């Protein structure tokens, strides 16, 4: 993220005057040492822990606790992965995590797009205006505050399972997502909808055929935030899901954090396996992630 923002000042310079501008452009492109050093430092803060995670995961238990986190694994051991796989029943855990994440992302995008569309197009009506503020107010309520009643409620209505987590997580994502969507929706000209109306489109089909496709960049942003939240969340699934067989990955991995024993190789192998989907998803959607994040930043 920081790479992107730090490099953008280049663009106006290159668009500048010819003669002197050209040489200054070359100067810019030669080496900007302060920025390079800063970026290198930033890169190290990410790459170094990643390297330790990788090398630890392939170490044997004895080597993992020898006090040299930066050493290369010797001998290469896959024991950590085998143990982590078994202890967390990885396929099941990952499946539940995937289910919860996918459900949360889809529900968040669809619900908040609906809500925002309704609110923005009816802004002149009090009910809608106040419902917007009502939703925004939810941003100030963190989950731990309402954890106890939520546990009891979900238990009463038999939602003490991943479906309940999807519902709750979507609700907690709603306020922020509605904020993003409404800001974006305001910039979409009303004329587009009017032309659709003239062609005989109902509100429902106007939304799905005109508005929702136009919301795509913002949907990506909202989806990314919901994905990161749902995939990494520990507290909500740990408290809401009552059947241990249906627990998500982060909760299963809590097993590795004990006071009395260090099994770095097993825990890091497990973390690596849990990180993999997020990294793979990022590699494929990088373009939209970058676009989406800046989208969220400049609209308002």
């Amino acid at each position, binding site marked *: 993220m920081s790479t992107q923002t730090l490099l953008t000042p280049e663009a106006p310079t290159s668009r500048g005057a010819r003669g002197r501008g050209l040489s200054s452009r070359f100067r810019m492109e030669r080496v900007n040492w302060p920025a390079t050093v800063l970026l290198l430092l930033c890169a190290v803060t990410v790459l170094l822990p990643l390297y330790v995670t990788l090398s630890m995961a392939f170490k044997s*238990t*004895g080597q993992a*606790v*020898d*006090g040299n986190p930066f050493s290369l694994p010797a001998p290469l051991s896959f024991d950590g992965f085998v143990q982590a796989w078994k*202890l967390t029943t990885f396929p*099941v855990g990952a*499946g*539940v995590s*995937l*289910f*919860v*994440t*996918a*459900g949360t992302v*889809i529900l968040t995008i669809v619900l908040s797009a609906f809500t925002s569309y309704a609110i923005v197009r009816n802004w002149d009506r009090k009910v809608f205006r106040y419902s917007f503020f009502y939703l925004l107010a939810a941003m100030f309520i963190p989950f731990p505050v309402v954890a*106890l009643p939520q*546990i*009891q409620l*979900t*238990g009463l209505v038999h939602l*003490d399972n*991943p479906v309940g987590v999807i519902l709750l997580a979507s609700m907690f994502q709603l306020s922020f997502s509605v904020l993003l969507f409404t800001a974006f929706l305001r910039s979409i000209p009303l004329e587009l909808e009017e032309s659709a109306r003239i062609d005989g489109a109902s509100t429902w089909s106007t939304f799905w055929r005109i508005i929702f496709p136009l919301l795509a960049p913002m949907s990506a942003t909202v989806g990314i935030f919901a994905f990161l939240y749902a995939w990494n969340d520990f507290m909500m699934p*740990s*408290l*809401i*899901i*009552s*059947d*241990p*067989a*249906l*627990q998500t990955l982060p*909760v*299963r991995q*809590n*097993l*590795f954090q*004990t*006071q*009395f*024993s*260090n099994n770095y190789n097993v825990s890091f192998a497990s973390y690596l396996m849990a990180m993999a989907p997020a990294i793979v998803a990022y590699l494929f959607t990088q373009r939209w992630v970058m676009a989406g994040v800046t989208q969220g930043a400049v609209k308002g």
Partner: protein
Amino acid sequence: MAGLGLGLCLLAGLLTGCSGGDGAETIRFTFSKREAIPFMTKVVDEYNASQDKVRVVLDTSGVDVVSASFVRGNPPDLMLANYNMEVSRFIDRCALSDLGGTAAAREIRDDYQPLLDQYGHCEGRQSALPYSVMASSVIYNKKVFADHGIAAPRTWDQLIAACDALKAAGVTPFEATAMDNWTIGQGWFDYSVGGSLDVVDFFKRLATEGDSVGPASQTSFSKDFAEPMTKMRKLLGYTNKNAPGLGYGDGNLAFAQGKAAMYLQGPWAFSEIAKTSPDLQLGTFPLPMTNDEKDLAVRVNLDLAAMIPQGSKHQAAARAFLDYLYKPGNIQAYNDSQLGFTPLKGASAPKDPRVAGMIPYVDKGRVYQGPSVLVPKTIPVFNYAQAIALSGDAGSTLSTLDADWARLAFRAPATKEKAK
């Protein structure tokens, strides 16, 4: 959408898999001691195979999940959990059923009852039964002691003499890891206090003082702990120079590499040390804090206790499995594998030579529970212990502890009343 579909299939598969209805009563058994999960999985599997009336499902998802399940009203049917201040809330509120009538309860050694009661009490009920008792004391490197002709000290003077001899020979007497505050609390703080005074008696007296604990009261931390803390600080003078920057993992590594002669840790550190030096000859002895050998005692904690929540709908089935867990073959095998002591009458101590030095004390009941874990978690006693160890000012920290205790007793007098 594909992901959602996949997830739904998986969920459906799991749900049907869980309710394999063959008439057996399914009970949920929580156990989250990570290093013993393979052992307990085997026990559960054997039990499930041995009969077809009760099917036990092992739940390893941890303490938070259990607390949430109490709130929700579907607590586990049987818990085998660390017996601590967190559990005491369930006991004080009578959320656990009476185990007094079980066969297991009759086999338990009587001298553990006062220790159980220290964490709370529900009138007329045996809320918990001890399953595994961990004893901890000073771990020492037998080779280093033998090389310098030193025997395990039994009095304070012998201890100081041993430290001086080791120091003169260029050996670090103690390995300390002050960065992790619990290691100071568990080892230095608890051993010093437990070796100096009667912990059960102290907390009883403290409870009667209630919210008047302070400079004027008969019993207080600043009065009773002052001398042990002074001695602890003297011993801390014999530690490695880099102690303030070392964590638990670093300490295990350094001790395994033979960098120090003594280490104040519990039996859980043995398996960590063995990761680096599997053949290191280690022994244990209680930390002598006085010159009277009668004061020698080891710190114990009820590492595991069995509990059946009142809210469980499978009381009889849970009791059947409880009896199976307490079968001498199972409980003894478990404790042997974890270097724990079996709290049953006539049980044999673990055979591992590393804990042999503590056996006489455990057998005679010369044990105490660490004061650092008997103080409710709302008081950051580990941090206070660390502050005393690092800053050197025991007096002001102990009076802070007094004030905290008094405040808590003032705000929550009911629980304190019961704790008596």
